[in-house]
């Protein structure tokens, strides 16, 4: 619903940056984050905001970030590609350069180890970002030290305009796990419960000191790379837009229809209220905000 509300806003009013919709990938994001505790950390990927919302960030803050309002967690400085941050619920942020979360996340694992904490850190990334060299450096360092990490690849089949099979010599990202001596698990990313189960096992493994797990969730990119992308390069759009593969629909079928309607109404009201609140909030004053937070 968050996704659809943003989509409607972008269609009507445009947007001060590039919104990279996560429609179709909510099942991975919500399912995986549900398996994390409040004290656990996550570094999210750039497509969607399911991670932050599922981890407990305020909707008004997240929407405030998207709309560059003073109520956003970054006050507008991380807006556009949608950076938000709330360390109090373990949402550490995201890099504008894809794949930068690998090494940062491995460092979070080092810190967890040093502090003798039982936290874990989940690192989300797309199949495109999985090509970065930072993946190799982080995966080597984290695996050899058995750091408490869970790598969650949202493989939606597209790195912007490049299909996954043109980027990877193997069929799956998970196949690469063998190189690092960690389990590589493939799950249906459209099934939030399956993602939850796989993540829960990986989290248990990480907490037990057994090291990282690579989970590859096969998912779909329903929309373009950014909202407004005409996607001329793409030949699988009918499949992508097939509602039978919508993770929200799939989850809905598992619960009582009456309960589902109740939830829809409740969530819709919450989302709309938060969006309106964010929209009504003032933009951050440029003079005030530009020079803030460069240095502590």
């Amino acid at each position, binding site marked *: 619903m968050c996704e659809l509300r943003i989509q409607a806003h972008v269609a009507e009013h445009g947007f001060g940056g590039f919104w990279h919709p996560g429609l179709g990938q909510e099942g991975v994001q919500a399912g995986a984050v549900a398996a994390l505790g409040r004290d656990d950390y996550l570094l999210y990927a750039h497509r969607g905001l399911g991670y932050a919302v599922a981890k407990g960030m305020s909707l008004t803050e997240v929407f405030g970030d998207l709309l560059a309002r003073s109520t956003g967690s970054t006050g507008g400085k991380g807006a556009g590609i949608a950076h938000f941050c709330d360390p109090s619920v373990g949402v550490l942020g995201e890099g504008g350069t894809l794949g930068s979360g690998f090494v940062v996340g491995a*460092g979070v694992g080092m810190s967890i180890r040093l502090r003798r904490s039982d936290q874990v850190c989940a690192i989300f990334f797309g199949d495109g970002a999985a090509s970065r060299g930072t993946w190799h*450096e982080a995966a080597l360092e984290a695996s050899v030290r058995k750091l408490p990490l869970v790598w969650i690849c949202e493989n939606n089949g597209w790195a912007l305009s490049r299909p996954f099979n043109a980027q990877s010599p193997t069929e799956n990202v998970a196949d690469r796990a063998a190189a690092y001596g960690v389990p590589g698990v493939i799950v249906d990313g459209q099934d939030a419960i399956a993602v939850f189960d796989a993540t829960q096992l990986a989290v248990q493994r990480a907490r037990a000191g057994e090291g990282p797990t690579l989970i590859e969730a096969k998912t779909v990119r329903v929309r373009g790379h950014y909202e407004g992308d005409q996607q001329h390069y793409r030949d699988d759009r009918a499949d992508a837009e097939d509602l039978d593969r919508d993770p929200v629909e799939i989850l809905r079928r598992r619960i009582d229809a009456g309960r589902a309607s109740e939830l829809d109404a409740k969530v819709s009201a919450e989302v709309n209220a938060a969006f309106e609140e964010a929209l009504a909030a003032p933009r951050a004053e440029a003079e005030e905000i530009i020079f803030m937070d460069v240095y*502590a």
Partner: protein
Amino acid sequence: MHEQSQPMSDAPVLSYGRAINQALAEEMRRDERVWLMGQDIGRLGGVFGVTRGLLDEFGEQRVVDTGITETFIVGGAVGAAMSGTIPVVELQFADFILIAGDEVFHKLAKWRYMHGGRVELPVVVRAPTGIVGGAGAEHSQSLEALCMNVPGLKVVMPASPADAKGLLKSAIRDPNPVIYFEHKMLYRVKGPVPADERFMVPLGKASVRLAGEDLTVVATGLMVERALEAGRRLGEAGVSIEVIDPRSLVPLDIETIVRSVEKTSRALIVHEAPRTAGAGAEIAALIQEKAFFALDAPIWRLGGTDTPIPQDAELEEACIPSVDAIVEAAQELMRV
């Protein structure tokens, strides 16, 4: 902050490298959140021997050897700092800042800003800088101006053993990311270093290393020693130069430099980095903005050649300002 808690003349004499080691050990004893990571810093004690002995005292959880994974060394420090520790990481050569460019210039410099000030990044990146007698073009650069041009980083360049210790301690306690350029040719240089654990040198405070009347010479890193030697020779020839070491380039103590120029009316800036768009260009611009009418002559810059550093030690030396070159430039500038 005790900048000097005992007279320098009574302080024990230590090398620059050991002074860095002492700062690391003192800070690690003081605060268990402080830890080290880098290539060969544990078992070997660092390729320049700077971290020798620290593995024995602090163990492998806090003195961490890595693979050849610079993006992890710096990027990992970012993650570790955001989640409650204080990493001091070593890049084997300052040049490797470029290997970890995304991590240094994006994650380290910008993540606090991008994330609304909600995370702190107390990270020190130790970066052995400059020439060392034949290390070649990709192991000899002086990249401080690059770091000055990316807001979010603090940039420190100690030139004496005492400053090496005092500045590193301040850098470790600073809540911001600090790129600490330690000069490879200075590791063995000795000088008095206060043993008092409270001894610190604040970032953003220049040091007047030699007082003089006729010409202000602003020098950084290895060039400070050379400017001081030039000062001795010029003194014999009747020219009195004032040598100022900014010690940190971000923040830059331009006030001390301007005060000196207002007294001498002449300024020469000396650094090892290529002259074009080096730190000297910024310092010269600031001097003329703040003290134009005090100047009796143009501000001159003496810098490294606008070339890569060749591998041969003699060719290498020909690329950076010598004591002779500083003496000649000073004498010529006095005639302008």
